[in-house]
């Protein structure tokens, strides 16, 4: 195999879920059948990686100073939803019709990985709490130990500023059957039951 071809295959392996075989298939597909697509992909990859940075306000990915959400005047400034990653913003936006603003942590607190409040840039969030006229902060971090620790820490920050903090509920998935749900989730759903 020619060295350049070899290099291309090697480069495709940086994608998640792509091993040597799939990388090879992708490269051959592009070269044999879709050279235009390949050119477009390479141009956009370069442009995107060079231009897309973080939104100044919420830190999600954006090629502008402020992302679409943050510059959208129709969104409610007094509601702030805190999530771990930019994908979560998309997920919540598509599923819930939430009309407030977001803050993306780009991670979670994890002492054993050396990530504390400073590494996570929580001072930026604190500034937002102080100056942002926020009434409620919705903590939508993942239901993992680290996500929970992060939510707790931020809720204490909010409390210091007199801001109400709420945590998204954990529970059984819609359309699921109790029998097949793992014990941990069920226990959590049970202890967090609501009056009807």
């Amino acid at each position, binding site marked *: 195999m020619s060295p350049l071809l070899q290099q291309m295959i090697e480069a495709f392996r940086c994608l*998640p*879920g792509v091993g040597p075989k799939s990388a090879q298939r992708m490269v051959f597909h592009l070269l044999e059948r879709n050279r235009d697509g390949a050119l477009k992909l390479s141009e956009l990859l370069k442009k995107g990686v060079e231009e897309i940075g973080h939104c100044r306000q919420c830190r999600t990915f954006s090629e502008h100073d402020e992302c679409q959400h943050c510059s959208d005047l129709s969104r409610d400034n007094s509601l702030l939803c805190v999530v771990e990653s930019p994908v979560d913003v998309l997920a919540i936006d598509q599923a819930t019709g939430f009309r407030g603003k977001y803050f993306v942590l780009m991670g979670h*607190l994890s*002492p*054993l*990985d*050396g*990530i*504390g*409040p*400073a590494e996570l840039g929580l001072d930026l969030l604190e500034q937002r709490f102080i100056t942002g006229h926020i009434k409620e902060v919705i903590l939508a971090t993942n239901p*993992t*130990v680290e996500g*929970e*620790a992060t939510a*707790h*820490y931020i809720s*204490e*920050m909010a409390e*210091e500023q007199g801001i109400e903090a709420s945590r998204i509920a954990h529970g059984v998935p819609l359309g699921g059957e109790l029998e097949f749900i*793992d*014990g*941990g*989730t*069920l*226990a*959590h759903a*049970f*202890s*967090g039951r609501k009056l009807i």
Partner: protein
Amino acid sequence: MRVEKQPAYILHQRAFRDTSQILEVFTKDYGRLSIMSRGSRAQKSRLRSILQPFRALELGWSGRGEMPTLISAEPAAQSVAFLQGKSLACALYVNELVMYLIHKHDVHESLFSQYHQTVNRLFETQKLEFELRHFELSLLDHLGVLVDLSLDAVTGKRLKESSKYYFHIERGLCEFDYSFEPEKIPVLTGSSLLAISENRLDQPEVLKDAKKLMRYLINYSLAGKPLKSRELFR
């Protein structure tokens, strides 16, 4: 080597490749070790919700060398809703201590049961400091850092309740005479030290002194490595 149904806790997990993870576990009979868990991060893996920190588990693994492979994982007890709030921050602190201070493959059976107790009590109690100090005492004892806290290292006699003592890492407890000021070394009363040595941590001032002493000894044992979980307490 094949191990089955070993009581264990997960201290930490790291993602590996697309669907696997490396688990850092603390076990009853094999001490602390790393286990490779294949496929457990996959979308449909049953193990995702089981392999969580602070959950009593029974793990099975096999393989030689530095990193065996996980072959089974079951919750050991009725599952409890996970730790929240301050208790969680305390539990993360406990995990950090175990990760940094317990060497891999050193077996500490009684420390494991102390860990089990501490984690479970952190769920229920308001007296978080009290539980943490108990765990720290037990940990330092296992590490061999702790000397007999009821004896004066110089005279070999029981401490005098009313005297003050400082902890000398090599020698032990020495009576504090006022002719010099020790730098960053805690000076504690005999009565506090005696109470700590007998595990009587109920009094607020004893608890406070215990914290000073533990912090000093833990920082010494860590040899300069910072504990990130301390930053979680506001």
